[in-house]
């Protein structure tokens, strides 16, 4: 028995001191290999009598199993140490910038247009489109702006040159989105609610004017829509658009040929350190023009102005984009400077939706 416990002790030391896979394998072979010491001892069992064998057998088997387990454990230890030292050597410079991928951007005019659509769609407004080259009729006449009326001169209209032999009246670049009102009312010939965003053109270029800019037209026609409804809609719009708790609007009498009564709309705001705050303060800022659709306009599209009434308004998209996002210069909108596009642009993920809040900030 002593012999076996000696053997055990010896191998415990050997296993523990084996520090590589191959040294451990040597120990295993020495102990458990075909000619290993334990194997040899097992072989001796055959020469023993029954009694001896029954006493010695289990001892040897237990030893064999113990050694096996110890070797396995030691093997795991060795692997663990190896892995630890490998990992320790695998230092990597994680400060390095990641792989470049394109940072696309949505133009603020697009983003704001989609914000406006999101808001008005929740009030049941559809989106209507119309041509940018327009006839005199849709841009002016149908909107109660007769040919020689001084109001027409105020638009700085661009004209499309016609064929030399073409006797038809020249077309214009639409000076406002209002012609879409006419086209839409002609189409539906009854109650409707639409907005019509898009490009408009006026021959004017200076610090605050560009010959092309963007407007969104609004139109709601029914039998009972009043100017008070218009005010509510605009208040709701401004509150949602500027993402503030409350807004205050002030209607100021004005004149547009296609609305009667007409009002310019101011919004309460403050300017502190050149920062605009909507909904507070003591300043008023003009943001849009509006009014009740002129009976002559309704008649022009064949609607009975005794039965139908409604409101219309027009907002400068670029302008409200500048106000909301603090973009200083209108001309920069159309310059396509990559730095500007990245700075003021929006990620493709920023699809405006009311349920998530219009903008992510």
């Amino acid at each position, binding site marked *: 028995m002593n012999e076996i416990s000696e053997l055990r002790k010896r191998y415990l030391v050997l296993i523990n001191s084996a520090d590589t896979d191959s040294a451990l394998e040597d120990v295993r072979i020495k102990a458990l290999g075909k000619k290993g010491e334990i194997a040899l001892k097992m072989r001796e069992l055959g020469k023993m009598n029954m009694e001896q064998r029954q006493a010695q057998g289990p001892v040897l088997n237990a030893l064999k199993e113990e050694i096996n387990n110890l070797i396995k454990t030691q093997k795991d230890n060795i692997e663990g140490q190896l892995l630890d030292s490998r990992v320790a050597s695998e230092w990597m410079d994680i400060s390095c910038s990641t792989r470049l991928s394109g940072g696309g951007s949505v133009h603020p005019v697009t983003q704001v247009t989609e914000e406006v659509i999101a808001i008005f769609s929740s009030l049941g407004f559809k989106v209507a489109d119309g041509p940018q*080259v327009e006839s005199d009729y849709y841009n002016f006449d149908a909107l109660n702006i007769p040919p020689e009326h001084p109001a027409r001169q105020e638009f700085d209209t661009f004209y499309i040159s016609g064929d030399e032999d073409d006797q038809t009246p020249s077309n214009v670049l639409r000076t406002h989105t209002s012609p879409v009102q006419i086209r839409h009312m002609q189409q539906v010939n009854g109650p409707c609610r639409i907005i019509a965003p898009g490009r408009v053109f006026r021959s004017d270029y200076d610090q605050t004017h560009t010959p092309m800019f963007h407007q969104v037209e609004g139109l709601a026609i029914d039998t009972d829509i009043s100017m008070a409804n218009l005010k509510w809609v605009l208040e709701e719009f401004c509150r949602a658009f500027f993402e503030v708790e409350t807004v205050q609007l002030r209607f100021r009498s*004005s004149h547009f040929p296609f609305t009667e009564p007409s009002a310019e709309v101011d919004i309460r705001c403050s300017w502190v350190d050149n920062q605009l705050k909507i909904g507070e303060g003591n300043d008023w800022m003009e943001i849009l023009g509006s009014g009740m659709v002129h009976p002559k306009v309704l008649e022009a599209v064949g609607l009975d102005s005794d039965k139908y009434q409604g409101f219309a308004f027009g907002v400068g998209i670029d302008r409200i984009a500048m106000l909301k996002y603090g973009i200083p210069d209108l001309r920069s909108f159309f310059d396509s400077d990559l730095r500007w596009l990245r700075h003021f642009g929006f990620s493709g993920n920023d699809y405006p939706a009311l349920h998530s809040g219009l903008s992510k900030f």
Partner: protein
Amino acid sequence: MKFTLSWLKDHLKTDMHVDDIVEALTDLGLEVESVSDPTKELNHFTVGEIVQAEQHPNADRLKVCKVATGDGCRQIICGAPNARKGIKVVVAHPGDYIPGLDTVIKVGNIRGVESYGMMCSERELMLSDEHDGIIELDSKALVGTKYVDQCNELDIVFDIAITPNRPDALGVRGVARDLAAKGVGELKLREIPRVKGSFNSPISIHLSKDVLNEDCPLFAGRYIKGVTNMESPKWLQERLVAIGLRPISALVDITNFVTFDSARPLHVFDASKLSGELTVRKARKGETIVALDGSEYTLSSEDTVISSGNVVESIAGIIGGMNSGCGGDTKDIFLESAYFNPISTARTGRRLRINSDARYRFERGVDPLFVEKGIDFATQLIIDICGGEVSKTLLEGETPYTDKEVILRPNRVDSLVGMRIPKVEQERILIALGFNVSHKDNLLCVKVPSWRPDVYGEADLIEEIVRVTSLSKLKGIPLQKSNLGVMKPVLTPLQNRVSRTRREIVALGMNECISYSFIDEKSATLFSGAIQTVALLNPISSEMTHMRPSLLPGLLQAARRNQARSLNDLKLFELGEVFFGRKPGEQAIHAGGIFVGNYLPKNAFGNQREVDVFDAKKVVESTLNDMGVSVENLSILRDGVPAYFHPKRAGKVSLGPKNALASFGELHPKIVKAYDLKGPVMAFEIFIERVPFSKNRKLIRPPIKVSELQPVERDFSFVVQTRCEVDLIKKAILNGEKGVINEARVFDIFEGKEAEQQLGKNKKSVAFMVRLQPLKTTFTDAELEAISKKIISRVEKMTGAKLRS
């Protein structure tokens, strides 16, 4: 329009503070653009008296003055020639701001003598350009009192914007009437007595047939003899100067005064320059006139003129002629007050580009019932100021006015505007504005005053009522939803597609631009192809003369600007309208984009590369795919690609032979050069509306087929002619063993000089990975071998390829 507070008070009795008047004006729709109150800047100047004036010891032109002021006697050095003992002057003390010099004065030392202040000229107070001497005040002015209290002429000037529907507010009287209706004061009664003439005018008026009905229905005139056309009196000059007009002579100033006071333009002819009868007629084509502005105008047969003999003396309602203009020696005059048609006045004025105060009023519509009163009003002023003897008034034609009556349903104010205004108040407002109101049942029968040509219908009356009541009091009322329940989608399929396509392109790393819809002529020609260019009749600059036929030129110009700022790696796109005709609707929505420079710049991962055709192709593929069209199923044609593309490196994606959905490729080097760009440039154009919309929405997806059996990948390498398209090889590979060949993907193309050395002239090698999917049981080696052989033979047959050994 400008006017002063004292002028307003001629018509309006009011004690209201200026700020309240300003608020009321704006609220009425007479938007105040500016108010200038000269007393604010002059408040600190006081009255002084020079008690002693002696020659400066060291300067010939300077005097050392002792000036009595409210703070005692001060020594002030003064260079004005009129500085002398005994006069009352305007004194500024050290520390005071001098508006005309834009400086604060200090205690000075002028050539060795100290000076404690300054005596001011009119220019230094910004009252006028007068700088020949210092201001001499009335001798009764008290020393030490405020200068502003001494001077009556300092008047608050209002500048208001008048909307085109309010010709009546182009005179101070009209503004006063509005304010009175709003409760700012009381409109003063104005009687304009008839001025009786003592003789018959030696000059008669003839309205020719061609103007009688339309262009000049009414003309009043009278002869005044023996006038003295001197300088206007001070009050009149001050009024005109305050509103920015230059006083000329009493006669001219009086007509200007009446124009701004009562919106009644007038004209005065020097009668001695006229030859007999004045005829109002259409001009003969080519007739000319040298007008009072010194310019010569050539007239057309549409213009209305006033002529005498054969000479055109005036362009009706716009500007008088030099020939019969009044000067200092004018003795006898003919005074004109007429009604000229708004439309023809506007047309002539616009064509001749003459902007005059008269035109401005005539084209908006003057009060037809004030033609005769206007002449009496002006006559009285002329007699008072210039003297003279007056003829009887000649009146030709008929007053172009018939009473307009509009029915107002009082409850309509509430139903249209949403404001409850009592009927009595509605009536009060209308009457205050000059309307005549009578009752019939529950309705108001409203007669429109002659000075309101803009009022036609009920809505116009409602506007009058609410603007006087103040729209700022309007309270919002919720708009009822047009349908209950969950909101329905509002975008049309096209609107949706445009929005999705934009964000699809952004997701591919491109930056959205918005460029002007107009471009220069050269660009228009380069990108129009066979389509006619669309030019503007009145472009704003030579860079913006044509409507864009393509989005690319705008983007190329943007790229050029960016390159000039050293921004060289560009992926720019735009989604917007292009134009192919001059008529409404001849426009299309395109998505266009360009890639220039590096797709990815130099970086640590070594994947920097220049942009290539496949960047552009990728956008086309992804967006069309998002629209529900698989590019795999479309043909890519090399023919019929626009000429601005590289002829060998561009294609057009077509659905059938005629319907091109997109183009992509490298732009032609000559285009790159034309835009002075560092190229090459890759580009795409997607014709968004041409892609068909699928008829029915498919929410249910087809069942998924996933095999339990492992697929096998095999690589094949083919040697083909260099101009053999790899897509042809791909199609050959895929064209068989249905269901088994899952995918064929090029993973290597070996071409160029080295390749040709190894493979032979004009050869390249293309390597494909082919993925094979067993259908029922795992492939055996023999099966795989058979499939491979079939693939190879198909490719060889269709492309002439050889398997690379």
